[in-house]
């Protein structure tokens, strides 16, 4: 039982990171109907920005929470800027073209970030400094939670709450919801669609950056291709929850994280990367629009 609880804690931690990345996918999809394949690479950028800023602030020699927070904020700001540039330079010119053209552009951006990262950061893996020293906190019954896991949970929950507030209770959030319904109607109501799309990319990229920093805390090995698999899995999580649906992305991320950790713990570690997809196919066969997605009737 205690082993199961331990696995569950690990799964929820893993899942909350997937959820952070999945939120970026689902927001961009909701607004542009675009699968932003470069999102996983923005997450990689986040980890690298954090790596360099941690060195710059000297966060490894003298670890304190303020410096760690500063590292997180710097990485998020850097990725927000990167997301803005990507949208402006690559996605906006193809927005009016077919969705497939936009998709190939996204793949191009993804390849560019991976291979560009290999040149700029170097191909060999780097080790993320311990900006928060590991401490294990016993919860009784043989179950422990590390302070890093607590931080991951707290930061992701906080960011999700913030996102929820922005989307539901601010004017910009209202505009985002309007644009996701219809670009034309939103533009007629005086909403600047371009600005809202840019804002969505910045927001999504910042969440991905936070995910990158949090994962780097836990698994300190970072390299330019680290975003590929988590990117695909987060996308699967977004689809699992019902793509375009914000609470769905969180739920999908958690389900994925828990399922993955349980499979590694009880079945076989080598099947880890397959289980996500098996789960996905089973859920989509039962609920074709995802767990929380609405099945929209087709209008003729």
């Amino acid at each position, binding site marked *: 039982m205690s082993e199961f609880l331990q696995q569950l804690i690990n799964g929820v931690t893993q899942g909350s990171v997937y959820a952070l990345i999945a939120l970026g996918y689902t927001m961009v*999809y909701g607004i542009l109907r675009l*699968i932003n394949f470069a999102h996983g690479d923005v997450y990689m950028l986040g980890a690298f920005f954090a790596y360099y800023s941690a060195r710059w602030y000297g966060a490894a020699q003298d670890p304190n929470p303020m410096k760690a927070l500063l590292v997180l904020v710097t990485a998020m700001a850097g990725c927000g800027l990167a997301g803005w540039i990507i949208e402006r330079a*690559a996605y906006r*010119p*193809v927005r009016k*073209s*077919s969705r*497939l*053209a*936009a*998709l*190939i*552009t996204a*793949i*191009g*951006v*993804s*390849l*560019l970030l*991976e*291979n*560009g990262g*290999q*040149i700029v950061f170097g191909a060999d893996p780097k080790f993320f400094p311990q900006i928060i020293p590991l401490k294990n906190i016993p919860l009784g019954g043989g179950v422990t939670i590390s302070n890093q896991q607590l931080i991951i949970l707290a930061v992701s929950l906080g960011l999700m709450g913030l996102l929820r507030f922005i989307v539901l209770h601010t004017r910009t959030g209202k505009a985002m919801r309007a644009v996701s319904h219809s670009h034309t109607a939103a533009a007629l109501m005086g909403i600047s669609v371009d600005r809202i799309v840019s804002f969505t990319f910045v927001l999504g990229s910042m969440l991905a950056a936070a995910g990158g920093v949090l994962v780097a805390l836990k698994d300190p090995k970072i390299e330019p291709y680290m975003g*590929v698999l988590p990117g*695909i899995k987060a*996308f*699967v999580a977004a*689809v699992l929850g019902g*793509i375009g649906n914000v609470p769905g992305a969180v739920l999908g991320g958690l389900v994925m994280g828990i399922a993955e950790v349980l499979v590694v713990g009880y079945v*076989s570690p*080598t*099947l880890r*990367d*397959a289980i*996500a*997809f*098996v789960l*996905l*196919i089973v859920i*989509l*066969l039962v609920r*074709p*629009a*995802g767990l929380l997605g609405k099945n929209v009737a*087709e209008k*003729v």
Partner: protein
Amino acid sequence: MRRAVWGVALLAVIGLIDFVAPRLVNAYIMQIAVLCGINVILAVSLNLINGFTGQFSIGHAGFMAVGAYGAAMFSLSVGQGWVAVLGAAGVPPGIAHGIVLCVALVLGGLLAAVAGYLVGLPSLRLRGDYLAIVTLGFGEIIRVLILNIEAVGGARGLFGIPVWVSLFWVLTGAAGVVLLSRHLAHSTHGRALFAIRDDEVAAEALGVDTTRYKVLAFVLGSFFAGIAGGLFAHFLGYLNPSSFQFLKSIEVIAMVVLGGTGSISGAVIAAILLTVLPEVLRPVKDYRMVLYALMLIVLMITRPQGLMGSRELSWPRFGRRRTPKVAQ
């Protein structure tokens, strides 16, 4: 009769190319030519699913892997025995290899087609991006399964596959899939596929059995992907699961979209272009893939409809029309 003559003439031309080419260019260029041919088969077969029928599949590497491993396992387990038997019966080795290779390729193709059928079935319920993600998931599941099956080499890869494939076989396969696509585009069945792509609801209302045709597109497309996989296996003599990663599927989609979705000649041109381009860029070393990615982005921004749009090369009947129209 005329068709048979054309077929023989085509095979003769391919045979001639196969005979002359190695004497003109070096082995490196021959290898690129063979890989071009394999990618042409992949791109044109994916074009049947993505371009003709408008079903969004991003797991083509998975079907290719099924075909590759199926064909390779056949050759390793029984194929080589058959060659020995045929050899003892007095059949020259070249022909014996050809016969067994054909059986292996068709077997790999059929296995991939079964997989395509299984993936095509959920397309009854799923649309657009949900279907895409299921095909992605299928491709990844196949790869992870292969990694975990020791009998096919697991992560080490599968060694010692007999090398029977020359440019001749690859060109024949490419010509086959191009001709089949062309005939399909002009047939009733092809029109049904186009109708589904352009408006599924309208197609259904007009009496097109959309489910059947969507599955048909999947089965045909994956059959040829399987053939391409078999050719790949018998050309390199070695298979590794990492050859069939998600990136490979992406590469094939890039070929289809870059060529112009739905255009057969576009898929052929883009497949050759995207195979040759990374090789041409080899002198710039580290910047090779960066330039490749940049070119992909710039091409999509400047020509979002693809190189060919939905037009075809030199087929006046198709010229400048989005979909082939039936005579008024």
